[in-house]
């Protein structure tokens, strides 16, 4: 109950702020998409790529600001708030917003907006990529990138931002290098620091900063040398009413966790590299070797990193691991509807499908649900109208089913839209594209590392239309 009151209170404040903002920004319409009146950039005052950065939480409060040049007034964010108040959902706030003298380029990362203020013609992708890098770095340093964790570490955040960008030029964005310059906070270190009086800022120039392999530091030592690779594939698919595939593709990544002493030079080869026609690599991968031999040859960064991501295009046939039988209908009279959904295995390559969760965004007129499930639990939030059915592992002998009635607002016409089912699932030890790692060889060092490859297939944006 107390929690509820606090939440209510916050919403109230937020509305107040927004309405105030609306009042005095009314003469400058902020327009979605192709704006007819983008702000006029001032070319006489050049030329910081990112002039300032504001961090804003999802209730529209600015909780951090950093200016790389002169201070830009907070009021510039009013334009952002205006777009924010217009958007139905925080995710729908347009990423580029024009104002009379600046552009605001923003990303939305775990309930936090990173809003960059731009004053001259730049590449928006450059800015967006950089903002993502900032968010990832915070995540890396503080375990999570949230308002609380940032506020707890304001000084480190500031030091990091200063180290990452100099006059609009990204300086050090590799987490390996940053960690040498500014040590991440740990409980142990803060205890040690208070006792010994040492600092958390590195005194030495990071060794990787200027070598031709900036991603790796010198003098890495491990007692256990290990190299693990995770091949993770996500299926993005749209399945239509009748169960046929409208569109399906696979987004794959290979994440690596490498803890190897010295300067190892690795070569990773695949059984069937031909599957990969559209790839992007970590800068460490030698592109020429890939072009000529279809192997990944690289000196790895130390620790965890994304080695490559790939895309198996929609032109190849993509196996769809599950099928869904559904019958969701709304009756014109009687203020009720039927809901009946069954999930079954389709092309699972003999593996078990786990972690199945079905999410349905039901129409606004649905008031409540009365359903029974054969497997797992379901919850329905009457405020957001989101129905979540957590099935877990699928038993092919007895298919999971969720069935019952929906009670709806009476006296309202039946909804036109058909809710889509969003499906999450996981299959261990399988890369659905069929990709297989052949072997990993190491050159340049003498010891024998532990090696391992793990495969997992997940549903990405997997939706079934009803």
């Amino acid at each position, binding site marked *: 109950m107390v929690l509820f009151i606090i939440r209510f209170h916050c919403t109230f404040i937020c509305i107040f702020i927004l309405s105030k903002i609306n009042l005095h920004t009314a003469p400058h319409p902020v327009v979605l998409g192709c704006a007819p009146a983008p702000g006029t950039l001032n070319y006489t005052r*050049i030329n910081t790529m990112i002039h300032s950065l504001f961090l804003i939480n999802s209730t529209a409060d600015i909780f951090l*600001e950093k200016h790389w040049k002169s201070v830009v007034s907070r009021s510039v964010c009013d334009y952002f708030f205006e777009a924010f108040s217009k958007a139905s959902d925080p995710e729908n706030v347009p990423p580029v917003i*024009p104002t009379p003298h600046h552009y605001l380029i923003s990303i939305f990362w775990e309930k936090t907006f990173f809003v960059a203020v731009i004053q001259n013609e730049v590449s928006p992708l450059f800015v*967006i990529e950089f903002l993502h890098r900032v968010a990832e770095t915070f995540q890396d340093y503080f375990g999570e990138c949230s308002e609380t964790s940032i506020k707890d570490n304001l000084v480190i955040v500031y030091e990091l931002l200063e180290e990452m960008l100099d006059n609009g030029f990204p300086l050090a964005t590799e987490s390996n290098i940053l960690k040498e310059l500014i040590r991440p906070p740990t409980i142990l270190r803060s205890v040690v620091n208070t006792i010994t009086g040492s600092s958390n800022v590195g005194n030495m120039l990071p060794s990787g900063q200027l070598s*031709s392999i900036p991603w790796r530091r010198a003098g890495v030592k491990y007692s256990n040398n290990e190299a693990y690779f995770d091949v993770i594939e996500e299926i*993005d698919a749209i399945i239509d009413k009748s169960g046929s595939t409208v569109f399906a593709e696979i987004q794959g990544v290979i994440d690596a966790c490498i803890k190897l002493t010295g300067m190892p030079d690795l070569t990773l080869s695949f059984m069937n590299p031909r599957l990969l026609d559209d790839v*992007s690599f970590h800068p460490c991968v030698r592109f020429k070797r890939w072009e000529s031999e279809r192997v990944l040859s690289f000196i790895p960064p130390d620790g965890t990193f994304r080695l490559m991501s790939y895309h198996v295009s929609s032109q190849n046939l993509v196996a769809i691991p599950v099928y869904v039988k559904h019958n969701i209908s709304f009756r014109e009279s009687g203020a009720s509807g039927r809901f009946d959904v069954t999930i079954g295995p389709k092309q699972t390559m003999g593996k078990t499908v786990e972690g199945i969760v079905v999410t349905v965004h039901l129409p606004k007129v649905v008031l409540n649900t009365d359903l029974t499930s054969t497997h797992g639990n379901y919850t329905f939030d009457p405020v957001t109208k989101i129905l979540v059915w957590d099935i877990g592992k699928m038993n092919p002998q007895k298919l999971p089913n969720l069935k019952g009635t929906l009670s709806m607002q009476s006296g309202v016409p039946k909804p036109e839209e058909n809710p889509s089912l969003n499906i999450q699932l996981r299959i261990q030890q399988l890369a659905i594209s069929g990709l297989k790692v052949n072997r990993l060889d190491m050159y340049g060092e003498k010891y024998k590392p532990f090696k391992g490859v793990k495969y997992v297939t997940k549903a990405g944006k997997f939706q079934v239309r009803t």
Partner: protein
Amino acid sequence: MNYAFRLFVTFSAGEIFELKAELNSDKKEKKKEAVKKVIASMTVGKDVSALFPDVVNCMQTDNLELKKLVYLYLMNYAKSQPDMAIMAVNTFVKDCEDPNPLIRALAVRTMGCIRVDKITEYLCEPLRKCLKDEDPYVRKTAAVCVAKLHDINAQLVEDQGFLDTLKDLISDSNPMVVANAVAALSEIAESHPNSNLLDLNPQSINKLLTALNECTEWGQIFILDCLANYTPRDDRESQSICERVTPRLSHANSAVVLSAVKVLMKFMEMLPKDLDYYGMLLKKLAPPLVTLLSAEPELQYVALRNINLIVQKRPEILKHEMKVFFVKYNDPIYVKLEKLDIMIRLASQANIAQVLAELKEYATEVDVDFVRKAVRAIGRCAIKVEQSAERCVSTLLDLIQTKVNYVVQEAIVVIKDIFRKYPNKYESVIATLCENLDSLDEPEARAAMIWIVGEYAERIDNADELLESFLEGFHDESTQVQLQLLTAIVKLFLKKPTETQELVQQVLSLATQDSDNPDLRDRGYIYWRLLSTDPVAAKEVVLAEKPLISEETDLIEPTLLDELICHIGTLASVYHKPPSAFVEGSRGVQHKRLPPRTGSNESVESPESTQPVVGQSADQPPAVIPSQGDLLGDLLNLDLGPPASTVSSGPTSTMQMGAMDLLGGGLDSLIGTSFGSPAVMPASLNAPVGGGLGDLFDLGSNVGIPCGSYVEPKTVSKYPAQCLLFSLRFSLLKYQPFISYLTISSSQVCCGICEE
């Protein structure tokens, strides 16, 4: 670190004094903690400038962390306390000589960020040393510092010869230094558009390409953007640059990918199309663009805006990738709308069935904006792919049956466009449309419906009743509807003169006597005179055959498209406007254009050239038009001069010569006459415009335009001459491709003429 959070909540004025005491403490630890507190309150936007002298006192220390923190503070507040900032200069100069390269770089970096004139004088000597420092880390930091200093005091940088040192750094042995030097030079060059700072020649290009492989992702972006400004000497050089840039398409950083795409799209222009490599390059461009669409939604949005340009320039690249643009229901709305746009651009006979099925699916979604656009898209498909028109119409009819208000209205608007494209083919649906007459409450839909009734009055038995029902609330309607109603009733009268005389009298008097709107009044008078002087002529004018609307709507005008292709990845490409349209003043803006294709014998038209361009193939860009004013001049000329029969050949350079004259003298006299009597005006326009006049008279405001790209400027009113402008604008509509350009300029031109 919890103090930071506490501070955020409970910072009070009294604490300032406490901080002051701590800053002046003898204990190092205490000092550091105090500075940290100061920085923490700075980050949340609190003013701690009062502590300036105390913080600066902490600067002389061998503790790197403390030094960094003080520097951070200095950068924020030096500008507001210039006299105090001088106190810091000595420490800076000393730090620039420090044996630790990290400290040298830090000092030169911070000094450049302090925008105080007095300090910049002291900066020159240390900077010169750092630019030649033995440590590349210091050199690369110093390179950026030159750009900073140039921003503060350009003259100083030139006098001190820093620019030449910077140019030398392009040949540095370290790729990071090269990248930063390029970035700094590009930045400086941007404020001196005519300077020859980045003198690109094959040798320097070669150096850049070598550095490209080795520097960081950000450096790669700077180098690629710089490469894009180079014009290769021939197709062979162009090909070799393309070959070396292609590997960047596989980079994980999407900004690198898009910058590489820009370079390739630009240099591709020079390659002969029959070259094998050309086809290969086309194939290589598709996968990275598709990959961009699996990134975060913000990146997707920018990518989609750019893909929109690429698809218009070279549709062949993505023609097989339609499916990746299918909308997922949890895409953010801004991504959905962009995807829809591209789907229509890629729609062809081969994939139309799939596209239609998708669009129909979208039309039942929740989001109103998206549904509207989807319905409109169905209409655009009908217009674009003739074979699908019938299916599109039946899909639209299905949607009308749903009776969802905004779907019905949107459907009626697009069906009107379909009628314009395929006259006398689908009129059987009119009955269904008429059933929904009462539910229409949006001006655009009402106007479209009225247009349909007027246009097909002879087939609708109760057309007079229908129109009469609209007439009741005439004064409450929007101008768009009023104009349309006027035109429709005049059409009806010309078709069925016996029964509707009273109706036409009524509408003419409503329009001319009871209305304050000059548009409406003038149009009313024109009709009135026309009908009373010569009904036969009136019939010829008002019921004249209309030109069909073009297949592709809202295409970007080709010269603009070429310019935007040169700006792929920038804000200009996101807004689809040339940088000059939203950059204050012309400084720093150069019109970039695609290089000419070598190997074909066409010469590039210079803007001054008076040779008409003959036999320009469709995919070849027409001569570059130097400015908006001239473009409009062109269009005016095309309209007012002898009837231009070859619209497709585009504006030719010869016509530019007289255009401005016409705009000046010619228009003046026209405006003069229109002041006198509105009846004279049609006569003076009649000869040149011909069929276009009919177009004007029965299209009316906005209704003939199939898509939203053209927005009528709302500021125009009060002047009788305005009617003429109106007619000019609408006769321009025949030249669809130019509409997007006109939206920018037409309001300015109107103002210009009204002032005269």
